[in-house]
């Protein structure tokens, strides 16, 4: 591979030629991507498309965290996982898929739950964090860790017919705790597999089936794609990232709206003026107790 002043080999130039053709992006923008590192927490419904697009686009170093194992009943929508990996870690499976589409980037595997005990060490190695998890305590923990370490957080969520996307802790914008200082009641914290914000029993009978399909995979697919896009904007330092704004996707009425959020709160316990959220405080914080919700639960069983 020959270099000709711009620091990119001819293979790299050919691979990303569509990027390089973009004005204001070009070699500089692609070099920024290749030099940047992104940590994706969660390799499920949101993480699947996000990881594939991030690997394809040429993020230099990609970290993947998940403690789960690939199960047959994940495969109907977690499109990054191949059958050959059933019973093996989701991280190993996702990493193999990313390497297969782009061997020129570095992929780091964390086959463990993201917890206060390992969070600081893992996250400190990355520039940007993508939250693709599925429960309330993880969302608070990831936010606080980003604040402690000063990392921008690309946060996506999908339940039922609704999707949400924003960037926290970036460019003077708010963090998750600025918006939601107190945790919601634990009945509103149910996990993805429990089918909806207010419980499966209420959601489904009132939902028509075309909506139900979105529920199964449409919303995570779309939000996961857009999470990768926002991460790319931050990594390449071009474009206007979705900071201080939130994208709300309503699949039922097929509406996307972007709303303006408050700025960073002076009184925020994590990022406010008098906040004392040190690494030490973070490591001793009990997120399960705070949200009254476990970090992981046993999967639901189906009997026919």
């Amino acid at each position, binding site marked *: 591979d020959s270099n000709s002043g711009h620091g990119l080999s001819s293979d790299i130039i050919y691979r990303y030629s569509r990027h390089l053709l973009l004005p204001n992006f070009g070699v500089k923008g692609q070099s920024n991507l290749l030099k940047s590192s992104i940590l994706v927490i969660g390799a499920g419904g949101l993480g699947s498309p996000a990881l594939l697009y991030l690997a394809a686009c040429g993020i230099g170093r990609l970290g993947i965290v998940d403690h789960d194992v690939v199960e047959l009943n994940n495969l109907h929508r977690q499109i990054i996982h191949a059958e050959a990996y059933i019973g093996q870690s989701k991280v190993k499976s996702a990493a193999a898929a990313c390497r297969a589409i782009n061997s020129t980037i570095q992929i780091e595997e964390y086959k463990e739950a993201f917890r206060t005990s390992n969070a600081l060490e893992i996250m400190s190695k990355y520039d940007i964090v993508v939250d693709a998890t599925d429960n309330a305590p993880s969302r608070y923990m990831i936010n606080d860790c980003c604040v402690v370490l000063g990392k921008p957080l690309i946060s996506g*969520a999908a339940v039922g017919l609704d999707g949400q996307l924003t960037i926290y802790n970036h460019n003077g914008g708010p963090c998750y705790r600025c918006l939601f200082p107190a945790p*919601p*009641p634990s009945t*509103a914290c149910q996990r993805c597999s429990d089918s909806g914000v*207010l419980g499966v029993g209420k959601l489904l009978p009132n939902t028509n089936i075309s909506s139900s399909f979105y529920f199964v995979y449409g919303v995570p697919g779309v939000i996961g794609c857009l999470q990768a896009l926002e991460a790319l904007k931050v990594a390449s330092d071009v474009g206007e990232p979705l900071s201080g704004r939130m994208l709300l996707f309503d699949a039922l009425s097929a509406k996307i709206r972007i*709303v303006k959020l408050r700025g960073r709160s002076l009184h925020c316990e994590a990022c406010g003026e008098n906040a004392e959220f040190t690494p030490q405080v973070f490591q001793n914080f009990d997120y399960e107790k705070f949200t009254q919700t476990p970090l992981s639960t046993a999967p639901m069983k189906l009997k026919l």
Partner: protein
Amino acid sequence: MKLTLEFGGGLELLCESVKTHNVDVDQTGEKKLTMKDLLSWVRTNLIKERPEMFMKGDSVRPGVLVLVNDCDWELSGQLDTTLEDKDVVVFISTLHGG
């Protein structure tokens, strides 16, 4: 005063799964309608079950984002925000799933 109220992120389930409500809210006297007034109107007239999933004290419960004309209500004074005819108010529950 005519307002459009929208519920999302699961909150619509508290009002018979209807997401958009075009409503007419009476004002008493000369005083402008505030978000505080509206919340109590919503609780009385629209919330059909489990009001504790919508309100806590005289504000919304933790985890609910309130938007007045697509702007976070923190920017317009929260409970003191005054409303105008044809304003759009959105109540949305933060999601955790993925």
